[in-house]
């Protein structure tokens, strides 16, 4: 819902300026939000909360973290469908409410002002979602053929993404065949043959690419390429090959920055 007040604010009804009532009515009649109420100031003993400092990570903060991880990781990371669904629902609800309120001729200037802020935020969140999806799409197209041959990667994709990887790989394949491969001798048509000293024709993520990892908590030891082990403390920032911290990233013990 859009205008979710701190219903338990004892002053809520007293020093209400002009615009209050219609909003409160609507907020009360609105269907309940399935989001964590703690973050919404709705809980009975919720203080005047500051989500980012007191409460645990909000959906948006999570998505921002996954977005940056995805941007910096060479490999495709597991899809976050539930989280995305939740945020998209939230955006839909906020926009629906904005539509409703804009249609209201009695809306005061104060309400218009709030509508503007809510819309601004919707656009910000949409930007993050789009950029996140585009980053994944970029990797999916780049590694489409590799994904089609690797079961473990397929599990990290959503249904839609997997479908796209399949069709995209098929298109590229048929393009290769019709433009070049069909005129080559049969035995030279394969793309996955290994020629010594030549880069492979099917591109794969470079798991050795260094990344900057930031430990969100104390991490169990990991083995470094030089044979030693490293135990990241909370807050530590390390530049190290992606494959070293891959498991830590999957367990959300580190984030990429």
């Amino acid at each position, binding site marked *: 819902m*859009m205008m979710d007040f*701190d219903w338990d604010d004892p002053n809520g009804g007293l020093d209400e300026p002009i615009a209050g009532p219609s909003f409160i009515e609507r907020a009360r009649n609105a269907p309940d939000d399935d989001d964590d109420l703690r973050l919404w100031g709705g809980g009975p003993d919720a203080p005047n909360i500051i989500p980012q400092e007191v409460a645990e990570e909000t959906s948006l903060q999570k998505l921002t973290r996954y977005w940056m991880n995805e941007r910096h990781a060479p490999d495709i990371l597991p899809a976050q469908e539930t989280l995305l669904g939740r945020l998209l629902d939230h955006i839909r609800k906020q926009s629906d409410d904005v539509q409703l309120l804009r249609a209201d001729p009695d809306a005061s200037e104060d309400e218009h002002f709030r509508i503007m802020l809510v819309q601004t935020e919707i656009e910000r969140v949409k930007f*993050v979602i789009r950029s996140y999806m585009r980053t994944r799409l970029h990797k999916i197209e780049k590694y489409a053929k590799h994904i089609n041959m690797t079961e473990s990667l397929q599990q990290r994709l959503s249904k839609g993404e997997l479908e796209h990887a399949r069709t995209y790989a098929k298109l590229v394949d048929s393009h290769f065949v019709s433009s070049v491969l069909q005129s080559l001798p049969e035995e030279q048509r394969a793309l996955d043959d290994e020629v010594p000293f030549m880069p492979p024709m099917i591109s794969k993520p470079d798991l050795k690419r260094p990344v900057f990892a930031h430990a969100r908590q104390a991490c169990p030891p990991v083995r470094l390429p030089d044979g030693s082990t490293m135990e990241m403390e909370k807050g530590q920032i390390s530049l190290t090959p992606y494959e070293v911290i891959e498991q830590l990233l999957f367990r959300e013990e580190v984030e990429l920055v």
Partner: protein
Amino acid sequence: MALPASLRASAIPAELELIASEHLVEIVPLVAMERTAFISGAYGPLRPPQKCKIPIWMATNLKMKKKCHIVPPQWLNIEYLQERLSRETSHPEFSEMPFRFAEIAKVLLDVASDDFQNPDKIRSLLKDIREARQAKSREGLSQLDHSELSLPNLCAMEINEIRPFFVRAMGVLTQFVKDPEARPPE
């Protein structure tokens, strides 16, 4: 392509600014507003002249419409920065700064310089700190090997700045030690 080439290697400063703008900042509102639910949480109510904490993006929005004054964060004043600068220049390691200090300082100084005492001095201190830290990052490059480099207290913008070069350099070092049958990345 799905992602423009300029965005593939790294995040860009504008994106870091977007992320940093979710941080909260204290304001003195000049307009009243009820408590309102946003996707990132509920903020308000705004009751002038009571201070209130809201995200930076919202504060800059209000500020540009002259509807609030921004209260600078504790670390964004001359005394604090002066102390950091002297520590930065006298100690070999990076001193501790808020992770997104560069972005936050820029956004706030851009839109609300009239809420700061002596914004020009703050700007020049920030610049000095930045330069002192940059020099240290460059020295850090000499410790780079193929397996790990720990960078305590490095901040988001600084990481982003050194990323292309450090990643490339480490990639080259990795290739030196790779087993001979492995192929270089495309």
